[in-house]
């Protein structure tokens, strides 16, 4: 655990208390079984917003608290423990980062206060194919009088059915795959020609595919500079990745602790299975991995808060190591629980499904190992 300020400790303690009491894994299960259309319970999200969690990275002048990314990461770690489903990551971290980093004064004033109170849900619409590949932007934005006209598609937009506004990467010049020629736009969900398709995912959270059929936006919809959106997009994505890694840390830690508890009570061959040395050594290896992954996640969040020049590589490190660790821990959770872990009535399956969805989002292990190597110049 990082050495925390008093504010950070208070945030974390509040988040821990609230998730344990109000948003346990069974709350998530109930949400899933009720098949809520957005993939989360709006009343639950309203409680989170009421605690100020939607404004943690938003400066005070726009309605936030400016506590920074480590602060928000501490909350996400706690919500990740109990698999809490909410648009916190999509709106209060990813979309808010887009506006904080790239928004004009007018854009900030227009959108950030709503995000900070939780009244407005925003999200990123970046990928177009089955794999995270943020340079592969084909969705075209052409000049349309003073404004722009967008044609194309976005895939697998987190909280895509809940969002009222999208941060959309579009191509204003160049070819799909080029870094140059990418421009970001803010597009309202109710814009004419924007069609959403809801996706039903294994992890039961909300996502959508979007089709843009001649969607017209004004000049004030552009975020940042024309054709030069790539560095901004890359920075926004790194914030989303670091926050997601923090959520995954909580998920992995809880999956491990639940498994450890089971090892201490399940009796086979006349003793608790936690007394079997082969399982002990696997548990020790997982614990070691979790400690190493935690260091990476915290370092990435701190690097963002300190605008450190090695932020990008620390974020890829965190997402990749956290992905590896969660992958292993979630598989071991099922294996070590044996048959009971295979049943839908047990939580292991919920953790396993969440694990793969989180690993995949914003780039999996292979993506981030490759990115790390490129950033190191090999």
């Amino acid at each position: 655990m990082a050495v925390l300020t008093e504010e950070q400790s208070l945030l974390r303690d509040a988040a821990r208390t609230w998730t344990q009491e109000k948003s346990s894994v069974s709350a998530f299960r109930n949400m899933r079984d009720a098949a809520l259309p957005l993939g989360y319970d709006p009343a639950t999200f309203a409680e989170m917003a009421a605690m100020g969690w939607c404004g943690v990275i938003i400066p005070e002048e726009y309605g936030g608290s400016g506590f920074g990314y480590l602060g928000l990461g501490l909350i996400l770690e706690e919500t990740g423990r109990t698999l809490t489903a909410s648009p916190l990551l999509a709106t209060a971290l990813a979309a808010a980062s887009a506006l904080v980093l790239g928004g004009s004064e007018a854009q900030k004033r227009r959108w950030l206060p709503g995000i900070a109170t939780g009244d407005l849900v925003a999200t990123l619409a970046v990928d177009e194919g089955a794999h995270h590949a943020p340079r592969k932007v084909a969705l075209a934005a052409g000049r349309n009088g003073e404004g722009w006209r967008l044609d194309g598609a976005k895939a697998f937009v987190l909280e895509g059915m809940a969002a009222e506004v999208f941060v959309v990467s579009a191509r204003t010049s160049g070819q799909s795959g080029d870094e140059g020629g990418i421009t970001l736009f803010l597009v309202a969900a109710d814009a004419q020609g924007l069609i959403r398709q809801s996706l039903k995912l294994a992890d039961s959270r909300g996502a959508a595919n979007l089709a843009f059929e001649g969607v017209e936006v004004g000049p004030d919809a552009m975020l940042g500079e024309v054709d030069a959106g790539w560095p901004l997009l890359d920075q926004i994505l790194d914030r989303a990745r670091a926050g997601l890694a923090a959520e995954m840390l909580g998920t992995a830690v809880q999956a491990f602790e639940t498994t450890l508890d089971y090892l201490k009570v399940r009796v086979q061959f006349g003793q608790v299975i936690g007394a079997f040395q082969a399982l002990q050594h696997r548990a020790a290896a997982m614990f070691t991995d979790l400690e190493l992954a935690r260091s990476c996640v915290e370092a990435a969040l701190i690097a963002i808060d300190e605008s450190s020049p090695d932020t990008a590589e620390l974020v890829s490190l965190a997402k990749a190591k956290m992905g590896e660790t969660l992958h292993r821990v979630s598989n071991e959770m099922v294996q070590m629980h044996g048959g009971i872990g295979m049943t839908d009535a047990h939580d292991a399956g919920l953790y396993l499904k969440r694990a793969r969805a989180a690993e995949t989002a914003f780039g999996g292990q292979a993506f981030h190992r490759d990115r790390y190597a490129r950033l190191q110049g090999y």
Partner: protein
Amino acid sequence: MPDHPAADPEAFRAEARAWLAANFPASLKGRGGVMMAEGGLPSEPDIRAWTRAMADKGWGVPTWPRAYGGGGLAPAQAKVLQQEMSAAGAWSPIGGMGVMMLGPTLLEYGAEAQKQRHIPPIARGEARWCQGFSEPGAGSDLASLQTRCEDAGDHWLVNGQKIWTSGAQWADWCFCLVRTDQARKHEGISFLLIDMRSGGVETRPIRLISGNSPFCETFFTDVKVPKDNLVGPLGGGWTIAKRLLQHERGGLAGAGRGGLTAEPVSDLAKGYLDLDDAGRIADSDLRARIAGHEMDLMAFQLTAARSMRESRSNSGPSAATSIMKNAGARVAQDRAELTLEIMGNQGLGWEGEGFTRDELAAVRGWLGGKAFSIYGGSAEVQDSIIAKRILGLPDPLGQSR
């Protein structure tokens, strides 16, 4: 008359080919997978006719004795039959736990009356069997089971609960391990056949993380079972069960190979991933892992073939089945994980629009396949068996598995 008098397998080839040409309906070619659907027997007329033809010939269980409805073929002839069926796109409509597990066990341990009563319906595909071994408190530690079987004079009285009874909701019969002696652990276990239509039998399907329910909880409440449904001696069930589990493991080891007919993951990858100018998968990290997996799969298949060649002279499955069970489970699970990774976001769907049927099936298969290393003796139990029985290492805990 002895079974398989003509030992020359090639002489048999023409006979098999002609019979298949005459009896296998063209409409069923390559549709073997249809039998794996959940629930009852299919009702298509062609399937029923084909099942009857195979049942009359005994070729659903080609090496079982003719006396009990088997085909009476020599192993070499059975291999020829398999080759000819494969060439014709034909498949056996007769399978399940009766064929894979109970039949071989009854042939070895059953009384003559039990064989005559139970083997022919299995050979004809008319009796569906389920396995009542596992209990909630006894996972890998099978011998700690608690379902009680009391001697009630003219019948047995059974009370208890089983879990992971696959297909119990559709089964006619259950082969069960029951406790006939509380005082002794392994020697207190007996092997009993229970009619699932008996009073006091209740089944509840278990919903799995994959969303399917292939298994049940099965409850026995004061179930009366005829005295002559006991297989082998009283208290001799453990020996029979260990033998039966070898048949099961041999079957499950084939599961990894089951992937054989499916598309190689490298072909799948070409559909989902970018290729470089030389036609290689551009994600080099994933490419290396795909190659590693396909090599593991090939190594597994070569080992399965080698093990079959080597065991042809032996009487049954060898201790090496423990190796194949674990290796097969690992290959199949790696394959499922890689499939999801290759599909990316498309490999995260649960149902509904936006995903192909194959994508949704991959997700369910990935989840369901997590059981490969749990059931039929967990990976951990198999490793301990290898260490003890094959490598001769001492028991770390002194118990007598």
